[in-house]
């Protein structure tokens, strides 16, 4: 197995994927209403362009983008705008939102024509991706069109399709690769055309042998697309680590992944690009894994849900007794966000709803650091988290910066391995927040 590619550092948490890996993607019934957040992407929030009472069709634009690093939003059902309201984002902040009540089954908005992958002009393809509100669906929710518009001074030569899904528990990308293999490959073709690339790597971790096999089979005749099996290790799905694993290149400190000549897109995002171009469907649904010990066996699912669906209703649909949930996590257990309420809504970044049982929902009391150096040995960026955390605790921002706190990718590896259960990532986040604030102050 040692001939498999990987990156340096990282950990091997138990992946718990057995809970939901055999569950085929299932369409969630059309919700009676949806709440679509204006801040569900990285970048500036979208601006509503509909009014209360207005009728909207499925896929119809309801909010416009407010800048380059922003996206439009679309109605995910056919119905009537109830009101412009507010709702919690997965981060726990409050965002403007549009609530829509469904009046009937889907009537698709006809503003997006179906395009031909090979014959359509590149600019039209690119515009389509932008108009359809595509963001990175692995969880980062970075607007896709920004990544597809590399500045001219970057020499990009490789597109990496991220099928790693290194977060434990999540199986949404895995199911998608098995069930929508050809669409993903076509999506990759679209991205290759937009970026004018001849080389594409589809990277999948070795714990998904069937996904690797089917991808290899379907790409056998595809020129320029190569499927690479990677050694199982967290955080291999992180952009920088994936680039290192696939190409042996490193993204320069403080730089964009483009600087290493690579553009990384998640398989879910790639599939969304296929839908946007070939089917003329904006991003109004996604695959979300409902899993965890607090979900009964027959409730664990990989659901195809409309954006804006109520989390509460989904949990109900999956027969989850909410009293059994100790911790509700949006995303996976390593980087996902603990939710303070179940009254939230599916966003474009909702890769999973992980319901930990009350027993699993531990909060760990930190003990003194014993300098065991596990955090140093496992950090995928090769930082010294134990030392940086000590600097942050003493508010020694300059020292923390000298020890490269700003390079941290917040993957959680250090906290995961720490035997003293120290809150290392927390210190990293706090330190970065304070240092960035100081830097802004200095500039002003």
């Amino acid at each position: 197995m040692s001939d498999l590619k990987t990156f340096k550092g990282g950990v091997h948490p138990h992946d718990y994927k057995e809970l939901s890996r055999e569950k085929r993607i299932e369409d969630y019934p059309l919700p009676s209403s949806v709440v679509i957040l204006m801040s569900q992407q990285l970048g500036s929030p979208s601006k509503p362009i509909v009014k209360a009472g207005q009728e909207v069709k499925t896929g119809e634009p309801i909010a416009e983008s407010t800048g380059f690093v922003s996206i439009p939003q679309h109605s995910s059902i056919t119905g009537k705008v109830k009101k412009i309201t507010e709702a919690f984002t997965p981060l726990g902040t409050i965002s403007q939102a549009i609530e829509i009540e469904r009046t009937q089954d889907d009537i698709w908005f006809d503003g997006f024509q179906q395009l031909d992958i090979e014959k359509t002009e590149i600019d039209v393809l690119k515009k389509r991706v932008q108009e359809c509100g595509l963001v990175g669906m692995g969880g980062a929710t970075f607007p896709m069109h920004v990544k597809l518009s590399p500045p001219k001074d970057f020499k990009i030569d490789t597109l990496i399709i991220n099928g790693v899904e290194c977060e434990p528990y999540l199986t949404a990308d895995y199911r998608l690769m098995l069930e929508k293999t050809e669409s993903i490959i076509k999506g990759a073709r679209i991205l290759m055309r937009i970026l004018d690339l001849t080389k594409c790597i589809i990277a999948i971790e070795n714990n998904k042998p069937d996904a690797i096999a089917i991808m290899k089979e379907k790409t056998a005749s595809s020129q320029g697309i190569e499927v690479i099996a990677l050694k199982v290790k967290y955080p291999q799905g992180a952009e920088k680590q994936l680039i290192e694993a696939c190409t042996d290149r490193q993204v320069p400190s403080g730089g964009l992944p483009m600087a290493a000549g690579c553009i990384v897109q998640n398989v879910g995002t790639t599939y969304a690009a296929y839908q946007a171009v070939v089917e003329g469907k904006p991003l109004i649904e996604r695959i979300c894994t409902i899993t965890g010990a607090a979900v009964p066996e027959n409730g664990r699912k990989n659901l195809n849900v409309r954006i804006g669906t109520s989390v509460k209703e989904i949990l109900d649909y999956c027969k989850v007794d909410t009293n059994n949930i100790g911790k509700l996590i949006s995303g996976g257990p390593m980087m996902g966000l603990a939710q303070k309420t179940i009254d939230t809504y599916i966003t474009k970044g909702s890769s999973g709803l992980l319901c930990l049982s009350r027993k699993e929902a531990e909060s760990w009391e930190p003990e003194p650091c014993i300098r065991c150096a596990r955090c140093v040995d496992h950090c995928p960026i090769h930082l010294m988290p134990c030392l940086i955390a000590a600097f942050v605790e003493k508010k020694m921002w300059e020292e923390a910066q000298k020890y490269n706190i700003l390079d941290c990718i917040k993957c959680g590896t250090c906290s995961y391995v720490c035997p003293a259960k120290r809150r290392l990532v927390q210190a990293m986040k706090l330190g970065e927040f304070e240092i960035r604030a100081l830097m802004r102050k200095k500039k002003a």
Partner: protein
Amino acid sequence: MSNQLLISMSPHIRDKGTVSRIMWDVNIALIPALIGSIYFFGLTAIYTIVSAIAGALLAEYLSTKIRGVPNTIKDGSALITGILLAFNLPPHTPLWMPFLGAAIGIIVGKQFFGGLGNNPLNPALIGRAFLLASWPVTMTKWYENMAPSGGTLSGLLKAGNLITSATPLTVMKTISKAKHALPAGGNLEQSLIDNYNALIDAPNLINLLVGRVGGCIGETSALLLIIGGIYLLAKKIIDWKIPATYFGTIFVLSILLGGIEGKFCIRTGLFHLFAGGVMLGGIFMLTDMVTSPVTPLGRIIYGIGGGLIVIIIRFWGGYPEGCCYSILIMNVTVPLIDRYTRPKIYGFIPPKKEEVKNA
């Protein structure tokens, strides 16, 4: 809503390892050598170990009480200090001595600095250094290891059996001193050459490996210590880099520098590895997480540095043994080593030349 969801920052799952689990694993790794010490030295080993453990635990308990912090006896770290100090003492010390040494180690070496994780030096060795400086005669009085002749506990119970004897290292020291005192071109006395050859002879090396020699109660059996070391390596509690570089340095340098009449012999290297506290120190004390570097390169430098000091003290210093001081001295260098051996970060960009000048 009746249900209270727990909110905390990611990651929401953690590795099973805990601090006390690590400490208890170290204690488990010490068991083979502990049983060996009782086999080789009999009741005195039991007395010494129990007394040291009592001193360590009592000191830990009282210190945490006085400091008003949670009692940390259960984490097993004070127990390690007690056992390690006992292992570093000769047999038949008066009973108050291990007790006092362990207490000093815990109080001065560990709790003064803020308890577990904050001590710059190995607490057990602080205790030993304190005892050695205060009662040098008692601390260097060696007794014949009874096991080969007596072999059983009952044979050891008779106090009359005690015979003071030299340890292999004190014999070696005499030879080494004579070697240095030689005028250019002079020859060593034949008796010293015979002694030297007997020391590095295969039967004696086997005695050293098994532990049938005089010395501190826990350090004599290299084999039993290595068994504990393998356990620690398997449990990923110690990093192989520290013992490997420490032993490697001692092995190579003693072959190059430790011979007589200009001869190099692998057996000299083996002698210096198995004699004295090198195995105990290199596996259990130099590797103590709290007092060793956190960087991979740092651990290599640290191990080599420790080995160098052992060689310098054994060949040119005033003591026959250099293990304890090699560890204490290297402990002091750890912050400096860590500072200059930071791992190269992912995506490292070398600073431009002008920036280096300005820095």
